[in-house]
């Protein structure tokens, strides 16, 4: 993915894949998934706002928390195609950690369910279409907590 291509940016803004995902979901392949985890939450991944995402996750409005932090997550991404993110939750009884990118066509990037015994700390890499706030949404003991960090996506390369 070449995030600096302006034509692509336009495409991203339209969020054209929604209908496709919906169609695929309707085709019923979700049920055939052999993974034990809950079926893929199409509504949450299609959501365009934090409110809609939380609603689709059957959650409540999150409160800002200093116990949710970004570690080893840079302020600037040299390339938006790969942005390293580490989220650490110090909220007791953390059950899940989600990563959302505000200005992506669909906000939700990933949700991790944290069973007892697993550290509430996740490192992964996400795509960012442009400079944006990144949110870490934590579910702990049934409640939702959120933290945010702005990550700048820079233009690079010599050929445009």
């Amino acid at each position, binding site marked *: *993915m070449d995030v600096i291509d302006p*034509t*692509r940016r336009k*495409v*991203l803004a*339209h*969020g*054209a*894949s929604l209908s*496709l*995902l919906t169609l*695929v979901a309707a085709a019923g*392949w979700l049920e*055939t*998934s*052999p*993974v*034990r*985890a*809950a079926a*893929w*939450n199409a509504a*949450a*991944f299609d959501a365009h706002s934090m409110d809609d995402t939380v609603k689709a996750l059957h959650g409540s409005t999150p409160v800002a928390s200093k116990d949710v932090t970004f570690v080893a997550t840079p302020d600037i991404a040299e390339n938006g*195609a*790969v*942005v390293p993110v580490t989220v650490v939750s110090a909220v007791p009884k953390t059950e899940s950690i989600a990563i959302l*990118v505000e200005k*992506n*066509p*669909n906000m*939700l*990037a*990933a*949700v*991790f*369910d*944290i*069973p007892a*015994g*697993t*550290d509430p*700390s*996740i*490192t*992964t*890499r*996400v*795509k*960012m279409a442009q400079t944006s706030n990144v949110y870490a949404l934590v579910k702990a003991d049934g409640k939702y907590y959120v933290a945010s960090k702005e990550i700048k996506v820079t233009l690079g390369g010599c050929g445009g």
Partner: protein
Amino acid sequence: MPDPMKIRANQLGDATEVKVLMSHEMETGQRKDAQGKVIPAWFIQSVDVTCAGKTVLTAQWGTAVSKNPFLSFRFKGGNKGDKVVITWVDNRGEKRTDEATVA
């Protein structure tokens, strides 16, 4: 057949650290090819990690996880010699399972 994952599982004190690289396009469904046709979304949707048969992490992913995904986390209760088994399933229903021994 998708390519194998590259899994590392190391015992660090009482915690087991898992690092995994997966080979996947993670196509967003928002890009167009040279002819202007939308390239359909193709991405890993679920990831499931067990150690010695016990689930230590599950995840649901969207198209915004980077191509050739990387994931790292730690859990307690693992021991050297345990098998860490990771399975991913993508939106085409393709899946891949690989394992590594905790070292």
